[in-house]
């Protein structure tokens, strides 16, 4: 899971919205390199610092059990944030993921009575369909991603309420079903959702770095117009990215339902903003054109560790978690802004 290289394939000088994402040429001085390194690996450094410090202060934090707990909690958000990262790299945003996550969970729990495949495929079909709808409206209809996905946020939750008799019915995953095992089983003590999230991140990193689709993503995010002029399939790329985001959100919801053995209707509220926070903290620029999958992973873990630490401290109530998360977000984005500026000024 290495860092991605934005638009190295682009032959034409792309007039990116964020100039000099990676300043090429001999004038990259030491100070620049430090700034670049900080922007790319700053989150990882913060994450490691927090983890090491916490291990010394709270012995219970460093336990394997706690690591399992933190990572399984983080795995669902991680899968959602993976799709969000790709959407944001293209310069878009997907606000519908929280609702789609909840919808995917409810559909999976309902369908689990018909077997493993139904429980896994049905939510993917429905949630992928919602993502496809987002993509079509945004790419073909020329509509703003923010507002289109805001509408599907409402629509997906409406669909969820309709499926559950206005939230009154909770579908349970049958005991001993293979689908339930998907959420509760584990490899060396680490739950399947963690393994699945890691595999998806590995695949996502490869796609972004090594495929033309990945490089098209960066080109589209850098400048949609320039990408069109270069003959890249801009609309198709956008449609695909939103579909992927819907699929991943639905998958995360299904995994969550398998873990909880039920389709809980109240999950996922505000999850889109958690995912965006993780992506932004991970160093992906919201204007598009630059970002990394691994950064998002560290961002998700950092949010999860903060939450876990606040639980460990105990005397702090859980409200502090969002204060600290919000504070982190401010510090990171402001720092990013200045780092980007210092690099551009040469």
């Amino acid at each position, binding site marked *: 899971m290495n860092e991605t290289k934005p638009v190295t394939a682009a032959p034409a000088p792309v007039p990116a919205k964020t100039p000099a994402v990676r300043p090429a040429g001999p004038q990259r001085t030491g100070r620049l390199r430090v700034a670049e390194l900080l922007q790319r690996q700053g989150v990882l450094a913060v994450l490691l610092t927090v983890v090491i410090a916490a291990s010394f202060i709270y012995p219970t934090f460093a336990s394997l059990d706690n690591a399992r707990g933190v990572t399984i909690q983080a795995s669902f958000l991680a899968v959602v944030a993976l799709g969000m990262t790709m959407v944001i790299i293209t310069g878009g*945003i997907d606000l519908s993921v929280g609702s789609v996550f909840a919808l995917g969970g409810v559909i999976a729990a309902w369908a689990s009575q018909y077997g493993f495949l139904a429980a896994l495929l049905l939510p993917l079909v429905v949630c992928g369909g919602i993502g496809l709808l987002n993509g079509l*409206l945004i790419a073909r*209809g*020329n*509509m*703003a991603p*923010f*507002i*289109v996905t*805001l*509408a*599907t*946020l*409402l*629509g997906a*939750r*409406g*669909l*969820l*309420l*309709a499926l559950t008799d*206005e939230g009154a019915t909770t579908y349970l995953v049958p005991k001993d079903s293979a689908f339930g095992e998907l959420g509760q089983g584990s490899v060396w003590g680490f739950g399947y959702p963690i393994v699945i999230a890691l595999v998806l991140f590995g695949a996502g990193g490869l796609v972004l770095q090594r495929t033309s689709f990945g490089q098209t993503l960066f080109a589209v995010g850098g400048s*949609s*117009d320039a990408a*069109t002029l270069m003959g890249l399939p*801009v609309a198709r790329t956008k449609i695909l990215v939103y579909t992927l985001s819907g699929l991943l959100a639905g998958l995360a919801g299904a995994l969550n339902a398998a873990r909880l053995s039920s389709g809980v209707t109240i999950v996922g*509220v505000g999850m889109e*903003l*958690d995912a*965006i*926070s993780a992506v*932004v903290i991970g160093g992906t620029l*919201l*204007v598009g054109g630059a970002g990394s999958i691994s950064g998002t992973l560290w961002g998700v873990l950092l949010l999860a560790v903060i939450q876990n630490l606040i639980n460990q401290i105990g005397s702090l*109530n*859980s*409200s*502090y*978690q*969002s*204060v*600290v*998360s*919000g*504070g982190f*977000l*401010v510090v990171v*984005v*402001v720092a990013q*802004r200045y780092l980007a500026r210092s690099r551009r000024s040469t």
Partner: protein
Amino acid sequence: MTPTAVAPPAKSDKPPKSASPLARLRDPSWYQRYGVYVAVAVVLLFNALFTEHFMTADNFRTQLVQVAPIVIVALGMALVIGTEGVDLSVGSTMALAAAFLPLYLGYGLVPALVVSLLAGAVVGAVNGALVSLVGLQPIVATLALFVGGRGLALVMADGQLKQIVNPDLLSLGTGSFLGIPLVVWIAGILAVAVAFLVQRTTFGRQVVAVGGNRSAAALAGLPVKRVLIGVYVICGILAALAGILATARLTASDPSSLGTLMELSAITAVVVGGTPLNGGSVRVLGTVAGALLMQLLRATLVKHDLPDSTAQIAQAAIIIAAVYVARERRSR
């Protein structure tokens, strides 16, 4: 069907340059501008014909009281969106304002109100500074306080719901004047004030200019940074006021749930009301109508025994339709 043959009616100085009313109906910008009023009229007509006990003073009073906080927040949001921004933190700001109320009510109503509104102004100033001075994208800048603001509210309130017993504050929520609830008066007066601000003041023109083309506005010597901070501060104060009024009506300060999803309702009202998301124009009356349309639509569906889920799906469809009408028609 020769629209050009008819003499222009000249009574409208707005974009429809085409001649006959028929041709105007074919002009997409007409829908963007007036579609929301037509939709409100259609919903009202439908209810007049098919819904019992809808066109009554009592029902309208209820609907208006419910929509008032959304209108108040949406007015600030319209200004922010007019500068090509967005404010995700309004719901958290409502919660924060509500959390401050019980802490200072011991000193009297006025100090409590002042502190609450000040909290909203501070949130707005932070948002505005991050957007204008640091140069962050509005979504990111306001996302931080969306995440942190509610936490701060919960921390201050010790995570608890607090009953409000101050009779003066409660009368803000329940009182009425000339048969119209106070909250409706406040929302109405604020709407007029913001409309005046947009259309008749220098600041209003600066807002539109900054939203239309920021670099041009800067080159023209407009105080772009001050204008940006100004709109976010106004938005924060209006959100705080909505939080205070909602608290007064609920007779309790509930920082954990007050204002959740308010940012979405407000953005919806603004966009459905015809204000373009890419700035450069603020439709105040349209915003009020947009909020009203969503409220009336939901009430209509509920009165016809259709569940909340249907209302949400219908709202989603209306948002899509509104944006489809307003979308950029450049071929990209």
